[in-house]
């Protein structure tokens, strides 16, 4: 028999100044005003129809890694999250208090990755992630946003990139990486602001900030594959977007517009995005939607697609395969969100000798890494619940007995690392580009010394 709600274990209280301190001064009147404004003015057909159509059947539950990992606790089921937030808000016509809003923010911001697997399990295709994003939007407008996440949004707003990378630091990093790349491959360059290039390459801000060698890597790959490419020296180089997840759609729109406009200004033929899933989602779906474009103005492809193209067209040859046993984390936003599951496997098969595909659920049905949807950006206070909320992923990874988990996404990368250490799996995480660097054939004439 089902447990009544009052018998469920208590959810540990996490203190986060972004919720606690900001909730202090909110009045019920303000809250109701904002809620009703968002619901009346910003939501439309989907919102109402989803809510009127949901038959409370709970069939979406089995989709959610949070639900499965928390002993099937109904509060973590997709529809359960909507019940605890929107149903209550609508029932009370927005007259809820600040403490309730803190709960809403916790649920919508830190316990849902917006992975949209549940809409593949609901018979009606109710888009729960969208509904919970409406909750995020309300919380954001009332300033109830986890502190760390808000910090990254502020960074986007002030510097047009996620990590407070300043203009001179950006160019500096590229020059330094170009030098590094040239110490391996003589023709390696990072061409800045080149007009009419075939490829406009963009990255997320953590690359120049903490993983600069990834930019050096791509410079080497581009040189070997002889790709005509460029990167912008000015704003628009960062394709990441945390504002999208915080509910700050105005900043989200600015960030996406800057990214696409940078490519348009350079008359690039297409944008190739580095290995990140959420950034891809922002650039290809959420950003254009908000900006009123059906498609992005310049075609966008993800790194996985690009590598696949380089390998299958023979522009990059594989000298020897990567030996260690590898498995794969399939990022929601490029596998469920772009159908790249097969290409991703083909790239891995072409580069790795011992590939151990993750057991079911895989491809579109993969479990999210637990970090996406802005959840990892909510920062250290929420790490414990995030790792706990994804034990199913740990089990899935452990079953492969692989040593390396390939994750072509920055969010997945960080999230899987936390899961590996949290559950002591003894594995390591690698980007696809790191594998590619190790196995790619470098023609002798290109080798530096």
């Amino acid at each position, binding site marked *: *028999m*089902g*447990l*009544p*709600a009052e018998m469920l274990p208590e959810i540990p209280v996490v203190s986060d100044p972004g919720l606690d301190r900001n909730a202090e001064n909110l009045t019920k009147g303000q809250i109701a005003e904002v809620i009703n404004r968002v619901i009346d003015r910003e*939501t*439309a*057909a*989907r919102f*109402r*129809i*989803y809510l*009127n*159509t*949901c*038959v*409370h*059947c*709970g*069939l979406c*539950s*089995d*989709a959610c890694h949070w*639900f499965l990992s928390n002993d*099937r*606790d*109904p*509060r973590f*089921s997709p*529809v*359960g999250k909507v*019940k605890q937030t929107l149903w209550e808000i609508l029932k009370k016509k927005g007259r809820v208090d600040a403490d309730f809003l803190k709960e809403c923010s916790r649920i919508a911001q830190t316990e849902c990755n917006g992975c949209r697997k549940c*809409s*593949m*399990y609901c*018979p*009606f*295709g*109710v*888009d729960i992630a969208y509904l919970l994003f409406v909750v995020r939007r309300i919380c954001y407008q009332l300033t109830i946003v986890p502190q760390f996440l808000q910090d990254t949004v502020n960074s986007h707003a002030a510097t047009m990139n996620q990590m407070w990378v300043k203009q001179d630091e950006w160019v500096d990093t590229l020059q330094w990486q170009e030098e590094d790349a040239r110490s391996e491959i003589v023709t390696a360059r990072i061409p800045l602001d080149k007009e009419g290039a075939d490829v406009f390459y963009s990255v997320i801000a953590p690359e120049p900030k903490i993983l600069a060698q990834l930019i050096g890597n791509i410079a080497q790959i581009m040189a070997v594959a002889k790709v005509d490419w460029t990167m912008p020296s000015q704003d628009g180089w960062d394709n990441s977007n945390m504002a999208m997840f915080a509910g700050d759609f105005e900043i989200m729109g600015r960030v996406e517009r800057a990214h696409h406009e940078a490519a348009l200004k350079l008359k690039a033929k297409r944008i190739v995005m580095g290995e990140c899933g959420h950034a891809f989602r922002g650039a*290809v*779906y959420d950003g254009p*939607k908000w900006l*009123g474009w*059906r498609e992005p103005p310049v075609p966008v492809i993800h790194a996985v697609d690009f590598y696949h193209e380089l390998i299958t067209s023979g522009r990059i040859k594989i000298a020897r395969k990567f030996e260690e046993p590898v498995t794969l984390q399939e990022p929601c936003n490029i*596998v*469920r*969100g*772009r*159908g790249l599951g097969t290409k991703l496997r083909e790239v891995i098969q072409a580069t790795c000798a011992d590939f151990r595909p993750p057991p079911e*659920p895989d491809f*579109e*049905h993969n479990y999210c890494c637990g970090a996406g949807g802005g959840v990892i950006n909510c920062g250290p206070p929420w790490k414990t619940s995030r790792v706990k909320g994804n034990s199913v992923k740990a089990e899935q990874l452990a079953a492969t007995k692989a040593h390396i988990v390939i994750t072509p996404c920055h969010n997945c990368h960080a999230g899987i690392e936390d899961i590996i250490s949290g559950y002591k799996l003894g594995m390591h995480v690698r980007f696809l580009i790191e594998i590619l660097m190790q196995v790619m054939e470098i023609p002798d004439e290109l080798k530096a010394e």
Partner: protein
Amino acid sequence: MYTFVSGPLVWIAFIVFAGGMIYQFLSMLKMAKKDKVVLPYMSLKYGLRSLLHWLIPFASKNMRMRYETTLVTFAFHICLVLLPIFLTAHVVMFSASWGLHWVTVSEKAADWLTVLVIFAAIFFLVRRWMLPEVRFVTSASDYVLLAVVAAPFVTGFIAHRQWFDYETMVVIHMISGAAMLMAIPFTRLSHMLFFPFTRAYMGSEFGAVRHARDW
């Protein structure tokens, strides 16, 4: 009483049902135009592709994960729609008033299918109670709606067996049937109307925009 429920009430029920459905459809259309992403993303091809997968039993992964629920759900919905239309007693009434007739199911089959619907309703009830994730999101209205849907079948079955007072039972049966029809457009039973649209939208977004499947 009988003349009222078998005459005007039936009319009222059909008019409210049809009018309500049209009203809901039009207001959905109006809202969809306001929601700037819905119509531009709708794709006939991907919408139908998704609908097809969700209309075939076990074609989608979640349906395969829950065999019993899928079977019962399909049986329930199919009977729910077809049984009242092809029931001899109903067809006879239509032909008496309008001279229309069409094929009917045999009395015996109808009996069994009615029992099937009632069992399915009990299954849903028990499921609501037993599964924590369903129970958590269940409110009184969910029970009421289930009762509203099951009532015409239960009463029809009893009336047909001539248990209790036949006359009264038929009247209750007709009232409950009318109540169900009228409830469809204005409650969550409207999923009957919205299902093709929500699923087709999700199918379109997954297919056309995301190049992926949604089943």
